[in-house]
């Protein structure tokens, strides 16, 4: 047994405070800088992710304001290019990635009955590297003009196709800030993923076999493997780009025999698995929330695990479906179309299993469940448009149009962001000890859902009607006016929804009801400890005999392990 590790009289050596009592601002700042606690780092990840979410969200508001009416001159074209570049880069690398790593950091050790991540200091390093990569990216607004005094923030799009990034076309330092920020952020992602893998493999409590591990941990194990395989290609092509820009190398210099298409291949070898790196954590959260609020164990646990591994495996071989229009051979087009269509199989399995979990269950429409239901419907739409775009001839017609924009916003907002909201509401009582307010949360859900569909559904139609993405304005009378106006009106509802979300976070923290250890009557180990959990997580390391250890504890007369 591990109980002898806990020494009642042992006191953690604390760093010397700067002469301030607990709770003062300097003391909090000092604790944030010095901490290696996975829970504090997890919350810092999520908080800084939400901060960047607000910044990048404001940029999106400006994009929609500019496009609301034809011939608008509010935002000049060069500023518009910077807006969509920074919006995309920030949402992927400074919002999506840190928030999912925040969830992994906070929950993986708790769910497997461990006291911390495997390498706590490496964990803190990963956070700070990510954080400063974000600062570096946004510092470009001040630092990028450089000696040439040309350009400020990056304006090459979030996938930065060559030769736009070459010295000749991107003067000043804006692209350098972009590439260095992504290189740095990539290092942070890789070390954090190594940490997650080692934690999930090596620190499970007694009895927590791989077959009993919560699906959340399984999915993050898969995500971490995807990160360590898919992010190095991004780092590699950033290194090549830096060599091109600073040492005159010829990787992407088309006039000296380099290839612009090679950048596309390398970027999307990273870029497509990245989509699954972002959406699998959404699946992870849904797989925890849906069973608890349906009062049934997850339907088809082994199939869920197999489907996740299958998605990760297939996702490494689908990248060129982003490149159907560059003129590949028929064989390549066919291969990447078929491999992309294959992803629909494990994804469909998952959706059916979540529905199977709810079928015949006693549904409780708490906030996390509401957002998970929204996720199911919206992610289905995203998946269907994804299947459409996987067909190469269809893609030739619609690539780089607003149909694609609508598709991936349905994936990343309708899919990922909804599960992030679900996750925040679900684990808010665990992390802060207070219940989120249901009424404010319902306002958030209704306003944001209405706004989301008003904004992004018409973009499908604008795309069908030929509206290209990334244009800063358009002529009247092309049939796009109405759809763009509707789309921009939806933003008002989304912003209102987000305001209710922020209000709820603050209101519930101050006036919310005390949550207690296990407010949702859930089954995984994080609910076995107090809310918020102590620094050491568990007084005694728990032992596990089934997939639902807390069910066994609450129902000794009918434990799960008798049937597994």
């Amino acid at each position, binding site marked *: 047994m591990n109980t002898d590790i806990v020494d009642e009289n042992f006191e953690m050596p604390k760093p010397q405070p700067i002469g301030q009592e607990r709770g003062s601002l300097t003391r909090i700042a000092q604790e944030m800088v010095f901490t290696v606690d996975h829970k504090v780092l997890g919350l810092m990840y999520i908080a800084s992710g939400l901060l960047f979410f607000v910044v990048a969200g404001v940029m999106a508001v400006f994009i929609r304001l500019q496009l609301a009416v034809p011939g608008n001159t509010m935002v000049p074209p060069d500023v518009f290019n910077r807006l969509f570049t920074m919006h995309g880069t920030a949402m992927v690398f400074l919002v999506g990635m840190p928030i999912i790593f925040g969830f992994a950091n906070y929950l993986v050790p708790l769910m497997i009955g461990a006291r911390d991540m495997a390498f706590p200091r490496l964990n803190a390093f990963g956070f700070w590297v990510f954080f400063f990569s974000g600062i570096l990216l946004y510092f470009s607004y001040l630092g990028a003009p450089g000696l040439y005094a040309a350009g400020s923030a990056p304006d090459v799009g979030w996938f930065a196709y060559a030769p736009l990034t070459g010295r000749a076309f991107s003067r000043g330092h804006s692209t350098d800030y972009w590439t260095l920020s992504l290189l740095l952020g990539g290092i942070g992602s890789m070390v954090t993923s190594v940490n997650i893998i080692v934690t999930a493999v090596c620190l499970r409590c007694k009895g927590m076999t791989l077959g009993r591990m919560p699906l959340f941990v399984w999915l993050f194990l898969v995500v971490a493997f995807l990160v360590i395989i898919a992010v190095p290609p991004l780092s590699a092509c950033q290194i*090549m780009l830096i060599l091109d820009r600073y040492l005159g190398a010829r990787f992407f210099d088309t006039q000296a025999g380099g290839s612009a298409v090679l950048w596309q291949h390398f970027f999307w070898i990273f870029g497509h698995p990245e989509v699954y790196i972002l959406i699998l954590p959404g699946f992870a959260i849904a797989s925890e929330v849906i069973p608890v609020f349906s009062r049934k164990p997850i339907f088809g646990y082994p199939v869920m695990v197999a489907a996740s591994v299958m998605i990760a495996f297939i996702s490494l071989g689908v990248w060129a479906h982003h490149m159907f229009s560059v003129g590949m051979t028929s064989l390549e087009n066919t291969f990447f179309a078929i491999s992309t269509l294959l992803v629909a199989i494990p994804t469909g399995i998952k959706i059916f299993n979540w529905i199977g979990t709810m079928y015949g269950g006693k549904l409780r429409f708490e906030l996390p469940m509401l957002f998970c239901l929204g996720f199911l419907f919206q992610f289905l739409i995203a998946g269907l448009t994804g299947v459409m775009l996987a067909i190469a001839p269809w893609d030739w017609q619609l690539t780089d149009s607003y149909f694609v924009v609508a598709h991936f916003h349905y994936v990343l907002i309708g899919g990922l962001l909804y599960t992030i909201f679900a996750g925040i509401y679900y684990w808010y009582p665990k992390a802060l000890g207070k219940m989120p307010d249901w009424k404010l949360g319902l306002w958030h859900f209704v306003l944001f859902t209405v706004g989301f569909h008003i904004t992004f559904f018409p973009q499908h139609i604008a795309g069908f009607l030929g509206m290209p993405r990334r244009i800063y304005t358009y002529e009247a009378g092309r049939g796009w006016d109405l759809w763009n106006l509707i789309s921009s009106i939806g933003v008002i509802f989304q912003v209102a929804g987000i305001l209710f979300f922020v209000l709820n976070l603050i209101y519930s923290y101050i006036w919310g009801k005390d949550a207690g250890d296990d407010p949702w009557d859930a089954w995984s180990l994080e609910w076995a400890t107090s809310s918020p959990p102590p620094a050491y997580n568990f007084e005694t390391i728990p032992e596990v005999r089934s997939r639902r250890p807390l069910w066994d504890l609450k129902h000794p007369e009918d434990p799960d392990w008798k049937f597994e």
Partner: protein
Amino acid sequence: MSSATATAVPTEWKLPSTRKVAVITLILTESSLFTIFLVAYLFYMGKNLTHPYPNEVLEFPVLATIALLSSSFTIVFSEMALHRGSKLWFHLWWAITILLGGYFLWFTGAEWHHLIYKENLTVATNVFGSTFYSLVGLHASHVIIGLFLLCLILILSLLGKVPKDHTEHIEMISWYWHFVDAIWVVVVTVVYIISIRVPNVT
């Protein structure tokens, strides 16, 4: 909670060492990085617009390859000596490993000096230069890191600061060194065997 659930828990509960899993994942992620540089090299093979071409300037690095590959054996001998408890042989084989690695690094430096000053091949000359220096340079940077770790262990051990229960730390460094060697086998095959036989088509 253990009272209700204690009976069906396996009495033996062993999980893999955190160090080993971490080094394996590190090697996996590094392999992915190398793969992209290798693919870039293979993709640009025979597509140079200007001289020099690989077959004009590259020579198979016989001695350096022998040195690096045999260092994988010497580090194994060193570990075996450590397990036997023979500090002397551990230090000796470990130092030989460092010398072999050092020779390899010196060779790369000399080769680059020759290529830059005699053959006028720089990273900006053509796509061969770009891909060659980035691929071999990435490998050489890993050799430098490996040598740094090897020297660190030797110094600490000579100072008597490596306790007996740290043998796994030393094993991890040898795993990393084996990885650096294995990558060289791939690099040398692609750069010095395949690419000098591929004609330039442009």
